[in-house]
């Protein structure tokens, strides 16, 4: 009834090719954005920001990055944790070397540095495919973590091997360091997430994204119709690593503030981001958000219900958390192998015909 194309006339090509062609959905998108920017910052608590919103926004960027590589270009990667570490350490070195430069620029530069590292590790993808590429990127994961432990230049020769984010301001408001306000860190990360999502969405539906998808669907056929696999695969690695680097920089600088590389950016991180895009939906920007929300919010919600409301012992709740999240992952993948994004797509198709489905 509300969700339909009828009556929404497009008079230009720009109108016709916009991201949300249906009026209802377009307004819903503006509404979500307005609530996120204008309402949420005023009602933010430390707890909500540090245990739900910051991890959700930052993991969403990482999931978008990996989704570009794995979901759109079909190159399986297990090196996400390592690339996030590159972003974090690049951001740390830039923050400490150039304290006067705005942190916003440092985070973007950290993304750029990660893009270069990612492209270098993406070179083997021209020769090896599938599981073998996964193993090659796994090597990147272990190598990068080893490198950041081994070479003390990366952590400015500190005795503990940890990196600590110094205080940096945006418009005179601290966004990193100890004295941050919840709303400031939230808005800072939100800006990056929205920016990354818009860029990713428009890249994936343009010519670059079509090349990636052609390579994913059948690389030999794509090569025959004129897609350059070298360019397509390396741009996918570069763009993907750029987003993953940004998320790593934010993860270190804004969310945690102090990082020990093996503990924070280990193989665990690579897997959790991979699970996010598999559960959320491969090849979908919305899926990246849905997957990140599923794996960040659900454990916290289960903990609040179990410990705070039901008053169960914390270890029982922690075990149940693993059982429930694990079972839900299996149920979702059996019921809908294409992830939460596909569920959303089906819902939208149903809505389009509602309430007269025939």
């Amino acid at each position, binding site marked *: 009834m509300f969700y339909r194309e009828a009556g929404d006339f497009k008079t230009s090509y720009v109108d016709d090719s916009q991201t949300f062609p249906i009026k209802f959905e377009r307004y819903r998108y503006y509404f979500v954005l307005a609530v996120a920017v204008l309402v949420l910052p005023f009602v933010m608590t430390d707890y909500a920001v540090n245990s739900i919103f910051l991890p959700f926004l930052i993991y969403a960027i990482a999931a978008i990055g990996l989704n570009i590589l794995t979901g759109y270009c079909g190159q399986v990667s297990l090196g996400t944790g390592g690339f996030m570490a590159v972003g974090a350490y690049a951001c740390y070195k830039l923050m400490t070397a150039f304290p006067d430069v705005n942190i916003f620029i440092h985070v973007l530069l950290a993304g750029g540095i990660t893009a270069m590292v990612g492209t270098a590790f993406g070179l083997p993808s021209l020769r090896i495919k599938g599981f073998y590429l996964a193993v090659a990127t796994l090597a990147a994961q272990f190598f990068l973590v080893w490198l950041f432990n081994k070479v003390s230049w990366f952590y400015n020769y500190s005795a503990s091997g940890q990196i600590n984010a110094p205080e940096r301001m945006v418009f005179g408001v601290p966004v990193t360091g100890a004295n941050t306000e919840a709303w400031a860190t939230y808005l800072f990360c939100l800006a990056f997430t929205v920016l990354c999502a818009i860029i990713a969405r428009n890249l994936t539906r343009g010519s670059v994204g079509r090349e990636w998808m052609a390579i994913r669907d059948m690389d030999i056929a794509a090569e025959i119709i004129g897609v350059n696999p070298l360019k397509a695969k390396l741009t996918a690695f570069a763009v993907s690593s750029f987003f993953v680097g940004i998320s790593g920089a934010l993860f270190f600088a804004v969310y945690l503030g102090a990082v*020990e590389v093996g503990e924070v950016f280990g193989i665990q991180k690579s897997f959790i981001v991979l699970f996010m895009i598999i559960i959320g939906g491969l090849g979908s920007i919305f899926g990246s958000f849905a997957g990140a929300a599923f794996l960040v919010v659900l454990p916290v919600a289960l903990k609040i219900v179990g410990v705070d409301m039901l008053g169960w012992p914390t*270890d029982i*709740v922690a075990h149940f958390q693993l059982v429930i999240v694990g079972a839900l992952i299996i149920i979702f993948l059996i019921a809908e192998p294409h992830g939460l994004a596909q569920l959303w797509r089906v819902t939208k198709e149903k809505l389009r015909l509602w309430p007269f489905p025939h």
Partner: protein
Amino acid sequence: MTLKLATAAVAALMAAGPVMADLVFPSLSYRTGPYASGGIPFADGYADYFTLLNERDGGIGGVPARVVECETAYNTERGVECYESTKGEGALVYQPLSTGITYQLIPKATADDIPIHSMGYGRTSAANGQVFSHVFNYPANYWNGASGAINYLMGQGDFAGK
């Protein structure tokens, strides 16, 4: 310096005690995860000790103590979540029990004005109370604990040639 500060903190705590309803001691336990075998007895002991104080002495200075337990699984991110969820209850002191979580909590707890007792582990340089006003690694960190032990042994007799 550290001891004096710790004494001052405990004294302040005692003085402030009777005003509050109860004394909140968050327990960032790790009963699950890779280090659970060490985490379970510690968390049990921590909770048992405050139960003992409550039932034998009627609390600390007549004020009952309350242990708020939160499961970290020795994981840094869940430790941060635990800190944020328990600090609002009027937490008096944090024992992060993991070096990774300690590093997260040092700036946060200093900004929130809550002391951290990282018993030996955590940040060694936090022994300098002039810089780290809210962190106490009493009774000793690894390095001055080790040198104390060696110095003691040196005083026990002649070790030449051993």
